[in-house]
C-alpha cells in the first residue's frame, strides 16, 4: 500500500519532457558520488553514435558561428546607410546611399541565417535519434540486468526505487542528452564567438562589457546560494506535509472513528504555514536573479551606448559596429546563465546515471554450470541433506535439516506466521542459495541443474496470486505458451474455473486489467490453479489459506487442489486439520524457523510447540469429533 503510493509520488513530479526544465534557478541539485567515473561510463554509451555526435558538434559550431558573425555584417549595412545620410547632410554633390552594396550585404546575411537555421535544425534532428537510442539501449540493458539479478535483490529493494531508476532517471538522462548537451556546446561557442567579435570591434568596449561579467556571475552564485537554504527548507516541509496527508487520508477511517478531524486539520495548518514561509522566501529570492541580471545587462548596455556614441563622434568606430556591439552585449549574459543552469542539469543527470549504473553493477545470480543437467522424466523425489540457511549470516532460519520425500508424498508446513513458505519456495526453486548442505531432486544436487529446467519441475499455487495484464487465455497458458485452445479449456475445467470464465462477457478472451481487479480473489486462485495444471509439474508448492475467499469458491478451490495434488510430490502450507493429519511429514515453523518436524502422532507425543498449537486451535472441536 505504502509502496504504491510513494511510487505515484515519484512519478508525479518527474522532470518529464517539455521546454521548462531548469527554469527554477537556485533549486538544490542532487550530486553524484563519483562524478568523473560515472560521466565516463555515460559517455561510453554514446560511443556507438560518435560519428553522428561529431556531425552534431560540427553543425552546432557552424550554426552558432554564422549567427555570431551576422550582427557585425548587419552593422555594416547600418553604417552604409548612416554614412549615406551624413554625406547627404554635408551636401556632397553625388551623395547617395549605396543600396547596391546594402543589397549585397543583406543577401549574404539572408544566406547566412538560412544556413544557420538549417544547421541548427540538423543538429537537433540528429541529436533526437542519438539521445533516444542511447536511452533505449540503456533501458534494455537495465531490464536485462534485472532478469539476471537474484531474488535477494528484489526482496531488499523497494519496487518504487527500482521503478524510478528504470523510468524517471532514464527520462532525466534522455532529456539532458536531447536538450542540454547541444545547448552546452552552443552556449560555450557563443560565449567565445561573442568575445572574439567584440574584440574585433573595439578592445575598450569589450573591456566595459567584461566589467559586467563578474557582477553577473557573483549575483547568480550568491543569490542562488541564499535561495538554496529556503528551497531545502521548502523541500523538507513539503515532505512532512505529504507524509501527514498520506497518513491522514490513509487512516481516514480511524481519524473519523476517533473524532480527530480537528486535530488533524490543526497539524496540517501548522505544516502548511511553515511551508508557506519557506516557499515564498525561496520563490522571492530565486525570483530576484532575473531582475538583477537584467539590470546588469542593461547597465552594460547603457555604458556601451554612451561609450560607443562617444567613440562614433570621435570617429574611432562606425555606427553599425555600435549596433552590432549592442546585440552582442545583450546576448552576452544569456549564455553565462545558461551554462550555470546546464551545469546543474548535468550534475543531476550524472547523479541519475550513477543510480542506473549502481543497478547495473549489482551482483548477478551464479550462472548455470556448463554441463548443467535437465531431467527428462522427473519423479519428484526431494531430499534435504544437512541444509543450513539464513537470510543474513546472523540469523539461521534452517539449521542442519534432513528430510527425504518420495514421489506422491505430502509435506505439511504448519505454523502461526507465513514467513516459512517463502523460504521453502526460495530454496527449492533456487531463488536463494543454501548456506550449507545440499538439496537434491531425483538424487541430483539442484545446483547441477539448469535453473530453467529446475524451476520447470515445480508448480506454485500461492495465496498472493500473480496474474498479468492480458487475456485469461494468455494467463492460463503462461506456463506453456505453446498450449492449444483445447488444452487451455481442459486445464480450466480441471481447475473448476471453466464455469466462471464462461460467465464473463468475453469468456477466455476477457482482458484482466492492471490490478486484475475485475475478477475476485477466489477466481484469481482458480486461474493460478489452471495455470499450474497446464504446466503439469512433478512437484507442487501449495498454499491452503482460506481468508478472503467466500465459502463456495473455497470449496471449489479445495476440490481443484485435491485433484491437482494426486500423483505429485506436494509441499503444502496447511491450515486444514485433515491435510495436516494425513501428511507424510509435518514441518512446524515459528517466526520463519523450522522448530519441529515429524508426523502428527510423533509431534503430539513430543508435546512441544505443535501439540500446544494443535490443542489451542482445535481442542474446542474435539468433543464433537469424539462424540461422532
Amino acid at each position: 500500500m505504502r509502496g504504491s503510493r510513494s511510487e505515484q509520488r515519484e512519478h508525479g513530479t518527474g522532470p518529464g519532457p517539455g521546454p521548462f526544465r531548469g527554469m527554477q534557478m537556485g533549486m538544490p541539485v542532487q550530486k553524484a558520488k563519483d562524478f568523473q567515473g560515472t560521466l565516463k561510463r555515460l559517455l561510453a554509451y554514446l560511443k556507438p553514435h560518435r560519428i553522428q555526435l561529431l556531425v552534431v558538434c560540427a553543425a552546432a559550431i557552424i550554426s552558432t558561428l554564422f549567427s555570431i558573425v551576422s550582427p557585425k555584417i548587419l552593422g555594416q549595412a547600418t553604417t552604409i546607410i548612416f554614412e549615406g545620410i551624413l554625406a547627404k547632410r554635408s551636401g556632397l554633390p553625388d551623395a547617395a546611399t549605396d543600396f547596391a552594396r546594402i543589397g549585397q550585404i543583406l543577401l549574404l546575411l539572408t544566406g547566412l541565417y538560412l544556413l544557420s537555421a538549417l544547421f541548427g535544425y540538423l543538429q537537433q534532428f540528429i541529436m533526437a535519434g542519438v539521445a533516444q537510442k542511447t536511452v533505449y539501449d540503456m533501458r534494455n540493458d537495465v531490464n536485462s540486468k534485472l532478469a539476471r539479478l537474484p531474488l535477494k535483490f528484489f526482496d531488499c529493494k523497494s519496487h518504487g526505487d527500482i521503478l524510478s531508476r528504470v523510468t524517471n532517471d532514464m527520462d532525466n538522462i534522455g532529456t539532458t542528452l536531447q536538450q542540454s548537451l547541444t545547448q552546452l556546446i552552443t552556449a560555450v561557442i557563443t560565449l567565445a564567438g561573442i568575445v572574439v567579435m567584440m574584440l574585433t570591434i573595439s578592445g575598450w568596449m569589450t573591456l566595459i562589457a567584461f566589467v559586467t561579467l563578474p557582477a553577473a556571475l557573483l549575483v547568480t552564485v550568491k543569490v542562488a546560494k541564499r535561495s538554496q537554504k529556503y528551497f531545502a527548507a521548502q523541500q523538507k516541509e513539503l515532505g512532512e506535509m505529504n507524509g501527514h496527508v498520506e497518513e491522514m487520508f490513509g487512516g481516514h477511517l480511524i481519524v473519523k472513528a476517533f473524532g480527530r478531524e480537528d486535530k488533524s486539520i490543526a497539524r496540517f495548518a501548522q505544516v502548511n504555514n511553515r511551508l508557506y514561509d519557506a516557499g515564498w522566501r525561496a520563490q522571492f529570492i530565486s525570483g530576484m536573479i532575473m531582475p538583477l541580471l537584467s539590470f546588469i545587462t542593461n547597465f552594460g548596455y547603457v555604458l556601451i551606448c554612451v561609450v560607443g556614441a562617444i567613440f562614433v563622434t570621435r570617429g574611432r568606430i562606425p555606427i553599425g559596429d555600435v549596433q552590432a556591439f549592442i546585440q552582442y552585449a545583450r546576448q552576452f549574459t544569456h549564455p553565462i546563465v545558461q551554462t550555470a543552469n546546464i551545469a546543474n542539469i548535468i550534475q543531476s543527470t550524472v547523479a541519475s546515471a550513477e543510480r542506473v549504473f549502481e543497478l547495473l553493477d549489482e551482483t548477478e545470480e551464479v550462472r548455470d554450470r556448463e554441463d548443467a543437467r535437465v531431467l527428462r522424466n522427473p519423479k519428484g523425489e526431494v531430499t534435504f541433506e544437512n541444509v543450513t540457511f539464513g537470510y543474513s549470516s546472523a540469523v539461521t532460519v534452517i539449521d542442519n535439516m534432513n528430510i527425504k520425500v518420495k514421489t506422491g508424498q505430502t509435506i505439511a508446513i504448519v505454523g502461526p506466521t507465513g514467513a516459512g513458505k517463502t523460504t521453502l519456495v526460495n530454496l527449492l526453486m533456487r531463488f536463494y542459495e543454501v548456506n550449507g548442505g545440499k538439496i537434491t531432486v531425483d538424487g541430483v544436487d539442484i545446483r547441477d541443474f539448469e535453473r530453467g529446467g529446475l524451476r520447470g519441475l515445480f508448480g506454485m499455487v500461492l495465496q498472493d496470486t500473480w496474474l498479468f495484464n492480458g487475456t485469461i487465455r494468455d494467463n492460463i497458458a503462461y506456463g506453456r505458451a505453446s498450449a492449444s485452445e483445447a488444452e487451455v479449456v481442459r486445464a480450466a475445467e480441471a481447475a473448476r474455473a471453466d464455469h466462471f470464465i464462461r460467465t464473463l462477457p468475453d469468456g477466455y478472451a476477457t482482458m484482466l486489467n492492471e490490478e486484475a481487479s475485475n475478477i475476485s480473489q477466489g477466481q484469481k486462485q482458480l486461474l493460478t490453479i489452471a495455470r499450474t495444471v497446464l504446466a503439469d509439474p512433478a512437484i507442487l508448492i501449495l498454499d491452503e489459506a482460506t481468508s478472503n475467499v467466500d465459502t463456495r469458491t473455497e470449496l471449489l478451490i479445495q476440490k481443484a487442489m485435491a485433484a491437482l495434488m494426486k500423483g505429485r510430490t506436494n509441499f503444502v502450507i496447511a491450515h486444514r486439520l485433515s491435510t495436516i493429519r494425513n501428511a507424510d511429514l509435518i514441518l512446524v515453523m515459528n517466526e520463519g524457523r523450522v522448530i519441529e518436524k515429524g508426523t502428527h502422532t510423533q509431534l503430539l507425543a513430543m508435546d512441544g510447540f505443535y501439540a500446544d498449537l494443535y490443542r489451542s486451535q482445535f481442542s474446542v472441536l474435539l468433543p464433537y469429533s469424539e462424540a461422532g
Partner: protein
Amino acid sequence: MLKLFRYLKSYRLVVAVTLGLVLLQTLAELYLPTLMAEIVDKGIVNGDIGLILQTGGRMLLVAAGGMVSMIVASYLSARTAVGFGRDLRSHVFSRVESFSLNEFNQIGTASLITRTTNDITQVQTVLLMIIRMAAMAPLMCIGGVIMAVSKDPRLSLLLVVVIPVLGVTIGVIAVKGIPLFKEMQVKLDKINLVVREALTGIRVIRAFNRTEQEKQRFMEANYNFTDTAIRVNRIMAALMPVLMLVMNLTTISIVWFGGIRIDSGHMQVGDMMAFIQYAMQIMFSLIIFSMMFIMIPRASASAMRINELLDTVAEIKDPAVAVNPDQEKGLIEFRDVTFSYPGAERPAVSNISFFAGPGEVTAFIGGTGSGKSTLMNLIPRFYDVDSGAILIDSIDVRQMKQESLRAKIGYVPQKIALFSGSISENIRYGKEEAGEAAVVLAAAIAQADEFITAMQDGYAAIIAQGGANISGGQKQRLAIARALIRKPEIYIFDDSFSSLDFKTEARLRAALREDTTRSTVLIVAQRVSTVMHADRIIVMEEGKIAGTGTHKELLERCTVYQEIVASQFSEEEIA
C-alpha cells in the same frame, strides 16, 4: 482554472499592484531603445557628448527603476502565489477531512493525496509564472507595437506580415507536437506497467521460465516509446531554428526598408536601430506567450481535479438539533436496515434487524462480500442507511452529533492504520488524556505489553509511517489497545484477530472478556474458532442474515454455518 482563482480574492489589491509593477518594468524596458535612438540621432549626429552622457544617465535611472519594480513584483508575486497555494491547500484538506467514506471511495485515497499535494503545487507554480511572465508578454507585445508605430507607422506594416507568420509557425508545430507528447506519456506509462508487473511477479516469471518473453514485452514497449520520442523531438527540433530565422529575416527587412526610408528622409538611423529592438521584443513576448499555452493545459488538468474535489460535499452531516442520549449503556438495535453502495446494482445489506446488548458478545461470520464489514461501518455512521434505522440506546444515530456518537465506540478496523509517532502516542490516540498506567493496562489486555517492553525503547519506540517496522499481528494488537483505552460502551472488532496466531488470539479473547463485561462487543471474523464462543452468532450471506444463535444451535440448523464450518474443518472433525 479560472474558477480556482476565486481564492485569489483576498489578494486582489496585491495582484493589481504586482501587475502595475510589471507594467512599469515593461515600459522601462521599452523606453531604453528610445533613449538610445536619441543618443544616436541627436548625440552622435551633432557630436554632443554632454547630451550623450546625460541621456546615458537617464537610461541608467530607467533601468534601475525597472529592476526595483521587478524585485518588488517578485516579492509580491511570491507571497501571492505561495499564499494562494497555502489557502487552497488548507481548504482542500479541511474539505477532505469532512468527507465520509462514500466520497473517499468515489475519488480514491491515492487520488485524494495527489490532488492535495502535487496538483496544488502545479497550480501554484503556474500562477506564479502567469503573474510574473505571462502578464509581461502581452504588455511587452502591445507596448512594442505602440512604440514601433510611433517611430514609423509605415515600417510597422512589416510587423503585420511577420507576427502572423510567427503565430502560424508556432501553431503548426504545436498542433503536430502536442498529440505526440500525449502519446509519449501513454507509452511511458506502458513501460512503467511492464516493469511493475515484472517486479511484483518476479517469482512466478522465474518459476515459469518466462524471463525471455517478459524481456520481449519490455523491449517492445521500450521500442514504441523510443520511436515516438524520436518523432516528437524531431518535430520540436524545427521550432527554435525556424523562430530564429523569422526574427533574423525580419531584422534584415527592417534594415532594407528602413534604409530606403532613411534615404528619403522619413526616418533617422537611431530610430531604425530602436525599431529593430522593438521588433525583437515583440517577437520574444510572442514566444513566451506561446510557451504559456503549453504550460497552462497541464495546470488546468490539475485545477479541474481540485475543483472536482471542492465541489464534492460530504453527504453525512450533523443534525440541526442533536439529541444527546441521557443514559449510557450501549444497546444497539438494527431495525430493518437496508444499504447499498452508490452505483451498486444490489444492496450490500438488506432487511437487517437485530439487538446487541451490553455485556454480550455478538459475532458476525460469513464469506467475503456477505456484508459483515458493511454492517460495522454503518454503526459509527461512516455511511447512512438507505432505509430502516440504527438505534443506540433507542436514539437514531442520525439524530446524534457524529462526534458524540463516535465517542461511544471503540473501533478496530479490518485494515489497520497506525500513525507515525511513539507506541504510547498511538495507543493514546484513543484517549489523549490517558495516563501512562492506562496505556500499559490497555496494552496488557491487548497482549501487546510483552512485545512492546521487549523493544529497545519500550513504549517510547517510534512507529514508522504506516507501521512498516512492526509485524501485522503487532499492529492489530496496538489497534486493539487503542480502542480499549477509550473504555467505550461499544466495541467493534472488524476482523481484528486475523493476523494473530491461535494461542495469542485465545489469550486475547480471554482478557477481553474480563475487561468488557459491561460493554457491547461486536466481533467480525472469518475463522470459526474466533466466533464460536460468542453469546450470539449472526451468520451473513449475500447481505442477508442467514441464521442467528449460538455455535451449537447454528451447527444444528443453519446450513450456511455448517458449510462454513465444513470448509474450515474436515468432515471427521465435526461429524
